[in-house]
Structure formats: C-alpha cells, structure tokens
C-alpha cells in the first residue's frame, strides 16, 4: 500500500463525492458519480479486494452511470415550478 497514492485517490473520492451532490446540472452529477465510483474501484484494488473492485468498476462506474444518463435524458433543464 503506497501512502501517497492512497492519499491522492482518497482526496479525489471526497472531492468528486461533494461535487456530485452540489453541482446544479444533473448530467454533470451523473458523470461525477461515475468518477467517484471509479476512484472507489481503485481504492478497493489497492486494498487487495480485487473482486469488489471488479464489481465496482462494472456496476458502479459502468452500468449505473448509463442508467443515470438515461434517466437524466428524460428531464428538462429547468424545473417547472
């Protein structure tokens, strides 16, 4: 476990997590959530949990981002109320 690498990835996890819930645009939030999942996947791989990292990469960063984008596709840019 490399200390510097761990620190950089953890910082990126926290920043992309905060950015995903504060950003106004829903599409950006979906993409940031995918980035968050990918950073988490790297963390699992660093900790040696390769099976969990694989699941996180396929489900978290891959398919769920597609689902979010597909759902955002059916929203409008401005809320009606």
């Amino acid at each position, binding site marked *: 476990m490399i200390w510097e690498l761990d620190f950089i990835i953890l910082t990126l996890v926290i920043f992309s997590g905060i950015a995903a819930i504060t950003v106004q645009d829903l599409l950006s939030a979906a993409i940031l959530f995918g980035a968050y999942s990918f950073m988490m996947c790297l963390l699992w791989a660093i*900790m040696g949990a*390769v*099976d969990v*990292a*694989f*699941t996180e990469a*396929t*489900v978290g960063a*891959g*398919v769920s981002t*597609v*689902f979010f*984008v*597909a*759902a955002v*596709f*059916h929203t409008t840019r401005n809320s009606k109320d």
Partner: protein
Amino acid sequence: MRIIGLLIVIAFGSLLRYGVFFFPEWGDPASPPSLHVSPHYIEEAITETAVPNLVTAVLADYRGYDTMFETTVIFAAGLACFMLLRVLQRQVPECRLYRHIPTGITLRIEKGGKLPTESGSFERIDSNWVPHDLIIKSTSRFITPFLQIFALYVIAHGHHSPGGGFQGGVILGAAVIMYAISYDLRRSIQRIGEQATAVLGSSGVLIYAGTGALCMVLGAAFLDYGALAGLLGVDPVMARSHGILIVEIGVGIAVSAVMVWIYYNLSSAGRHDEGL
C-alpha cells in the same frame, strides 16, 4: 432549517467518526472477524470445495443463501422498474422521422400521415438523434463480440480469478446496452425482446433456487452441492466446485437480462419506442 440540518449532519458525522476509533486496525490478525470463521475458510476452502478463489467459494458455497437473495433483489429491481415505468397502451407519436438511406434525405411524417413501406431504402430514426454516426456504429460492431467473449470468460473463470456471475452478467448486459445506444432501441428490442429479458431474468433465479432444491431432493441441506456428486459423476469435493459453476451461470443469466430490461424501461420512459 439549513443550519439545523447542518448541525444534525455534523453531530452524526462526529458520532460515526468516534465509532471508527474502536475499529480494529486494517488487516489486524487479532481482530474478532479474523479469529472465528476466516481461518476456517482460508485453510479449508481449497480442500473442501476445490476452488482456488476464496471469494467465489465463500460467495457461492459457504454463503450461497445470501447470494441467492442478492440475485432475487436484482430481479425485483427489474420488476419494480417495469411496474413503475412501463406504458402498456400503444401511443402514436406526434411525428416520425425516416431517413432515405441512398440519399440521406430525412422525411418528417406528421400524425396521420402515410408511412413509407417497409423496404430496404428507408430506416426510422429517433426524433432527437438525427446525424449519421458511422464511427460509433462500426466501433460498437467491432467491440461487441470481444465484450461478450470476455463476459463469458469472467463467468466461467470465476473459480480461478476475480470475477463471477455478477460481473460477467453485467458485462454481457452492457454489450446489449451498447448495441442499443449505438444503433437504436427498436433494433435492439427486435434482437432481444422484452419478454425474453423477463423470462431469462426469472429463469436465472430459478436455476439458482432449483439447484438448491435439487440438493434437498437428493437428501442434503439446501444449496449443499456435495449432494450432486451422483448426478454429475464426480466426487463430492468436485461436485461443490461444479455446483458453484451452475449457480454462477444462473446469476450471470439473471443479471445480464435484468440490466437490459431496466435499460429498456429507463431509456424510453416505458414506451419502448424512442430511446437514448
């Protein structure tokens, strides 16, 4: 109101942080979970199940009951998307767009207009994605077979390397989703229909539960694959390894079909006509 919310969040956050101080060190061999069950799995799994990948042995054999209900949860998620989103009555859209393939001219046909006959020279296109996308189509066509073979490898090779039914199933479903994104939703539904995804999703769960029930019929406990030794013609240890493979195939079928099913309902808002 925001300040009260912030205070509650800070209070709970510091409570959680306080709780973390009592956790054992990361990878501590003297921590409670490393003392009771883990040594048994680490020392005995290879002799009891003949599966080199410990995670697969724990996931599909020792904790097989958990994994069965995880698969059921995924199937239930697909069913919930279907129940909430699917629009069953057929609505005629406001206008339809057709592209004349030899010339590239786009036809716009209003409601009630006469549709072009189904010939090779017209293709229907989505109203919000009009341009030709030759590079995307060719790339997805090129990648899809490799993606599907890799997915089957991940499912079949879960005994020896990271992977298994969940990951392989998701990759297999992602190949179909990529086809639906790069071409269009209607063409993908023609290949793998909605009924096929629903039937495959439920049959995957049925394969898992059926394997467990078969073990019960043969006189062992639910999901004790050692009982399948007589049917498979191998010794009980190898039978546990083969039982894990059967179960992983069931999980892979269920997960891939449900991913495609959720995508169909989500991307077209339940109309299965025009999608992402």
